[in-house]
């Protein structure tokens, strides 16, 4: 089971800035375990961020994205209290969705 993402969304002058820190090992499939065996590739492949049900960012990731993926982006709109929802899918089919409320910056 995956761990929750940290989502911070703050609105200022009509623009909401969203910072996301996902919890995921993002294994490239090239790392060797302590006993010498290759750790299989395991990484987030798709991310979607929504503001009140409307998509505000879509991303596709490959193995070169760092462990515990970080994203920062901004969109016009949003008000304190409104929900930001972020969901991801990984190459094993695992999924996760977390949400946070926008705060006034």
């Amino acid at each position: 089971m995956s761990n929750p993402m940290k989502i911070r969304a703050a609105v200022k002058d009509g623009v909401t800035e969203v910072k996301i820190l996902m919890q995921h090992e993002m294994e490239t499939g090239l790392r060797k375990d302590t006993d010498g065996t290759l750790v299989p590739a395991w990484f987030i492949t798709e991310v979607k961020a929504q503001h009140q049900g409307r998509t505000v960012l879509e991303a596709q990731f490959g193995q070169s994205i760092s462990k515990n993926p970080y994203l920062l982006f901004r969109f016009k709109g949003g008000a304190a209290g409104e929900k930001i929802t972020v969901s991801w899918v990984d190459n094993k089919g695992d999924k996760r969705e977390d949400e946070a409320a926008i705060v006034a910056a």
Partner: protein
Amino acid sequence: MNTEINLERRKALKAGGGIGLFALFSALGLLRPGVALAEWNKTAFSAKNMDEALSAMGVTTPENNAVFIQLTVPEIAENGAIVPVKVVSTLPNIEQISILVEKNPNVLAANFIFPAGTESMVTTRVKMGQTCNVVALVKADGKFYRIAKEVKVTAGGCGG
């Protein structure tokens, strides 16, 4: 009594019609025509070198553009496992922004799309196996533009 019923019906029709159309347009992508991520491109994400990655993405001769794309990366990466990358583009009608790491075992790091109302800007973190160019590739109005910057890596971050 008739007036009451008619009013309720009118409200219901109005609300239903409004939401229905919005949902329909949204689903059809008509709110922002042409902007949608294609399915996760396994060939592109498995590409072992820049040419392979670009070819898999259908990129033909990207134009170097340092004016309308800003790529911010550290000159020297303290930790190759976590290299911050920021891409901003002021090109109109941006369809997609991609980040590639030239000498990584998996060159294509990420693709992003920005729906209407979202700034064409993103910051993320990539792994780098060795000193090489980080490339920001922007697709706008059907054409590709790129900018590259070298990042020196002292301790590689791709594993092994």
